[in-house]
């Protein structure tokens, strides 16, 4: 075999081995990097409230990126002179193969060069490519294995999912095309409606005693929104100095309960008065509502744009129909779809109060009703107990803080949603104090 052939054969063998090692190294690097990223995101999902979607799209994205990286890095050629230098270094040949390869590529008729190539060829024949450049274990194989073990540990870790259903509901709203963002707008609109400061054109709120719209047998035409507005007006006046529980509050709560009448089926539908079923009634404040572009259609709230939205959660306890503790009802939307709802703790006193008021409204006279209301309101317990009720917004917020997946595209929505609710809760809490 010619001397130059021996040298080149050794160098090509080294190049093949170097490419194999590089491929293994790149594979380990890419897999290790992908698993590390996956592990970090999984740890994020375990520890942080807002979740990152780790599904097949993510896996496919990482796989494609890793494949591109491997192809790009492995496609780079390894020149023979690099292999020669590597062999010189590994076999301590003092640049013999490097120099000989250069003279093979640039032949020179010289005895000294011939002797040099002959000696280098003898050296190349004596060398074993496997010993010079053995297949090495990738450096980051340990990292990949560690990340894989970490992912297994995270997968087997018992992650608390106590409030899973609320997040599911949010997801269902998003998947069903439910106007989640519009519900927030509705919430905001209702808050603005409840805030006289935000309605400069609105006439001053009437006296509290004028707004005490007790649900009478003849008040079936009272709309839920009227009740809500009156409730808001009463809230503007602040708590009763005597701690009295005004009739307006009650009416407003009932009105809002009626507002959600189509969405929420309470456990005892007979407890809900007829006027909360969402029937449209002559509106004494119709002109004002028209001026504001607001109207009430059955149980929904129509925004200025004409979009109908539904309040499903996030309102305070007074806005929710009162159910048994931790009971789950189900809401029926206009489309006939049903959804499970989570309700907060009971405000039993309030329920009792509503029942009494309703009972009185049917059986007793107006004076007797007022007397009983006075007794109940002055007991003060209702307010104390009412304050201990955890608002649904805090409730749902805790839920999201602990578990569940929130898609990236909905993170801002959820954040602003609870931010709005928190502001409203804080406002009501201040008013309560």
């Amino acid at each position, binding site marked *: 075999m010619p001397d130059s052939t021996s040298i080149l054969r050794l160098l090509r063998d080294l190049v093949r081995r170097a490419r194999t090692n590089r491929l293994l190294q790149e594979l380990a690097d890419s897999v290790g990097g992908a698993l590390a990223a996956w592990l970090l995101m999984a740890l994020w999902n375990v520890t942080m409230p807002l979740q990152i979607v780790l599904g097949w799209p993510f896996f496919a994205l990482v796989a494609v990126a890793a494949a591109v990286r491997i192809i790009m890095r492995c496609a780079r050629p390894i020149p023979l002179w*690099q292999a020669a*230098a*590597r062999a010189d270094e590994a076999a301590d040949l003092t*640049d*013999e193969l490097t*120099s000989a390869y250069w003279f093979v590529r640039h032949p020179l008729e010289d005895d*000294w*060069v011939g*002797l*040099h190539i002959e000696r280098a060829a003898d050296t190349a024949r004596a060398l074993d490519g496997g010993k010079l450049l053995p297949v090495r274990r990738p450096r980051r194989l340990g990292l990949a294995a560690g990340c894989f073990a970490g992912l297994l540990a995270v997968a087997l870790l018992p992650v608390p999912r106590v409030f899973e259903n609320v997040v599911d509901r949010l997801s269902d709203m998003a998947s069903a095309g439910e106007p989640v963002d519009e519900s927030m707008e509705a919430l905001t609109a209702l808050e603005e409606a409840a805030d006289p400061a935000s309605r400069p054109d609105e006439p001053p709120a009437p006296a509290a005693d004028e707004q005490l719209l007790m649900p009478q047998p003849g008040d079936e035409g009272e709309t839920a929104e009227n009740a809500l507005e009156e409730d808001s007006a009463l809230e503007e006046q602040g708590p009763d100095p005597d701690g009295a529980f005004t009739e307006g509050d009650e009416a407003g709560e009932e009105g809002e309960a009626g507002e959600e009448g189509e969405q929420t089926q309470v456990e005892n539908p007979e407890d809900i008065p007829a006027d909360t079923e969402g029937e449209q009634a002559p509106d004494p404040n119709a002109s004002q509502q028209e001026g504001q572009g607001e109207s009430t259609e059955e149980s929904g709230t129509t925004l200025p744009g004409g979009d109908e939205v539904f309040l499903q959660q996030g309102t305070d306890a007074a806005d929710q129909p009162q159910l048994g503790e931790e009971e789950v009802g189900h809401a029926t939307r206009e489309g006939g779809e049903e959804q499970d709802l989570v309700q907060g703790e009971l405000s039993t006193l309030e329920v009792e109060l509503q029942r009494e008021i309703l009972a009185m409204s049917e059986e007793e006279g107006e004076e007797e009703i007022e007397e009983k209301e006075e007794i109940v309101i002055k007991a003060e317990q209702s307010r104390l107990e009412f304050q201990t009720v955890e608002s649904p917004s805090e409730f749902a917020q805790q839920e999201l803080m602990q578990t569940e997946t929130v898609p990236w595209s909905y993170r801002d929505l959820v954040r602003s949603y609870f931010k709005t609710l928190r502001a409203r809760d804080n406002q009501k809490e201040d008013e309560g104090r």
Partner: protein
Amino acid sequence: MIEVEESIESFQGRFQIVRDEIGKVIVGNDEVIAGILTALLAGGHALLEGIPGLGKTKLVHTLADVLHLDFHRIQFTPDLMPADIVGTNVVHETPDGGRHLEFQPGPIFANIVLADEINRATPKTQSALLEAMQENSVSVGRETYQLEQPFFVLATQNPLEMEGTYPLPEAQLDRFLFKLKLDFPSVDDLHEIMDRTTQADEPTVTRVLDGEQIVEMRKTARSVPISKPVQDYAIRLTLATHPGSEHAVHETERYVRYGAGPRAIQALVLAGKIRALLHGRVHVAAEDIRANVMPALRHRVLLNFEGEADRIDTDTILAEILESLPGPGE
């Protein structure tokens, strides 16, 4: 092929004989001895630097004794004139009463010239060596006289005693292939020196090599092939001493005013070839280049003001370059 093998063996054998013979008188300083012989075989000249009493002059005397070559010593002093080195035309009176000018060769007309304490002469006198060292010829008046080969200048200088001295100009320094530093001997070497020099019989050497053999060894050394990657490494090493070069390191940029010139690359390559032969190789490796960087480049790197003020040694800069610059296969 066989002739080449024989040339290599002959080269190695002769080199070793001279080295051993010098070693009979000179204790230690193996690298300096190897450097002097390398400079001799590469056709260059060597500058020896060391404090007094380290045997610089003794080393040169011993080398001259080992070789069948003419040896002259010139003691450089401030009043030494160029004519005292190269020679001059003197009026010669013939027996018949006639007179004519006749060239009287100076001490530079020898195979080995010891320029002792070369930095004590004025630059004008130092410059008298320039032509002889580079072109192996001497011009006096209208006549140019060729120097006999091999022609080898060994200069010494004292690095400590600077008063009344004239530092060698860069052009003069560049003529020296190597600048070799003699270190103080170790305790064992001092014991050996005492044993050799305080006894009744002083060691003697025999002449083992003549001029023709030296010229033949020079040709052999120049036959060693060097590949372009290794030569490129030598070039990059030299360029790394130039501030502003793409190969310059941080120390170069900060402390160097001018770097080494093309003569430095010649020195690196020629010395690398000799070293390769001495190691039985027929090719020059990067290791051969690296081994000669210090003696070949240290006197060719000119420090700037900051380098002089910080008392930076050029060896430090060269060591940084050697560490930073990638080799031929890197």
